[in-house]
């Protein structure tokens, strides 16, 4: 398996307050890797560092063999094949579902390819097809989540970053979203880095997991093994029902 993403000893600060203090993680091609941890542990900060939304102070981020942590803005990162679905979904609320999806393909110029991806996305999320001309802001939370995942797929990414796709979504829909993530990873050969507070869901659908605590990696390993790990059970799977 070849390595797609490597984070080495990354430190990230907001002004003078650290959010990441020496984080090292890896993701291989074809993998789904989960990042779990409590509020403020630094999960989103890892994704923001990868996308270039937030600069890092120390360490290295390597994608596909190239360093990407210096001198690349968010738009350049998208062109390299990394697309993020941000926390809180962030659809373009006054645009139609169609225009939202087309925005996902903003960096692409191959018309035929874009249409093929559009077919794939609409096939995967039939709900989007029903709502095709509706303003995205008027859809339910679950539908919006499908839309932003679809929008990200429109870029034909190599690596998909998902920030809490289950947040604020009806439990039944969480199942659907989880299944879609597995299917996207398997069928579309997209590697996935998944941030989740729903640790059980994250451990179930990922190959490997890193558990973060206040800016560093506390635990990591195969997700199936971690699901049985006593520390994980008490710390991350505690009061959750599923």
């Amino acid at each position: 398996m070849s390595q797609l993403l490597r984070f080495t000893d990354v430190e990230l600060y907001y002004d003078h307050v650290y959010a990441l203090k020496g984080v090292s993680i890896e993701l291989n091609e074809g993998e789904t890797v989960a990042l779990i941890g409590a509020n403020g542990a630094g999960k989103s900060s890892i994704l923001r560092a990868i996308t270039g939304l937030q600069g890092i102070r120390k360490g290295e981020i390597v994608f596909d063999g190239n360093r990407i942590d210096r001198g690349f803005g968010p738009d350049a990162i998208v062109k390299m094949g990394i697309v993020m679905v941000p926390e809180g979904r962030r659809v373009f609320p006054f645009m139609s579902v169609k225009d939202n999806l087309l925005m996902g393909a903003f960096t692409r110029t191959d018309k035929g390819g874009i249409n093929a991806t559009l077919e794939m996305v609409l096939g995967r999320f039939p709900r989007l097809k029903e709502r095709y001309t509706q303003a995205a802001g008027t859809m339910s939370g679950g539908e919006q989540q499908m839309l932003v995942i679809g929008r990200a797929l429109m870029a034909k990414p190599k690596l998909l970053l998902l920030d809490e796709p289950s947040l604020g979504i009806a439990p039944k829909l969480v199942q659907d979203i989880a299944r879609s993530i597995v299917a996207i990873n398997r069928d579309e050969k997209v590697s996935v880095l998944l941030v989740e507070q729903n640790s059980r869901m994250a451990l179930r659908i990922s190959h490997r997991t890193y558990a973060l605590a206040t800016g560093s990696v506390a635990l990591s390993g195969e997700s199936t093994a971690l699901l049985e790990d006593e520390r994980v059970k008490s710390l991350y799977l505690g009061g959750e029902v599923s």
Partner: protein
Amino acid sequence: MEQVLANGLYLGAQYALIALGLTLIFALMNVLNFAHGQLYVLGGFVTYTIYGQLEMPFVAALFAAAVTLALVGGLMERFLFRTVLKRSVREESTMLLAAGTAFFLDAIILLIFGEKQRGVPKIVDGVFNWDFRLIMPYDRILIGFLAIFAIAAFVLYMQYSKTGRALRALAQDRVAAQLMGVNVDRYSMIGFALGAMLAGVVGGLLVTITGVNSGIGGPISIKAFMMVMIGGAGVISGAIAGGFILGMLESVGLSVLHSYGDITYLMIFASLMVFLSIRPQGLMGKPWG
């Protein structure tokens, strides 16, 4: 009656085009461009120079005004607003910058073009006369239709082109647009250039009817703010509605209130205050749609 309506439509189309440029810049950068009226004046003078002075075709002059103003707008964004927006944390900074730019452009315009009122030869002769119920010179009709055509072209461009879509996305959610690969700097510049170009085009259109002088930048800006406030800031449909409403009010006012003296704008300001106290977000008050 027909006369008042036709005048209102003609004026409204020009106004709507001015308001569209202002609202586009506002939606994209959250900047109220106080210098918008000066951009209009510049467009008028470029057209005056090329069509009136150099006696080249009007179409060429209008095109030159559009290109010049797009350039000026692009430069304003690149060297003034971008730098200030990056460094400042307070909104007043960009307002002061915009006001300063307006004075600066006023001075430049005065220096280059002087203080005289300038007009150009008629682009077409003749007057349309429908039984004396509706009398309108052909050049006004032509300029009116050109403005409506420009509005339609702009709306279609924003709705269906890739660039237009990216501009709308940027206005609705800056971060999400970035995450789709939109380069914020480049597209802010494109948007600013496009907004300035619209102001310049109207200046170029209206110089053939009312002429241009270096002092009308400020009043035009104020009218543009009013239209944007009537319609709702940052909304395409709002700018168009605001433009036509103000054009209509002005036309009705000029014919109805004529006998009471020059009080049209007094009445318009008063009603605008009442309207805004009832509906502060304007008619279509929502972010860019």
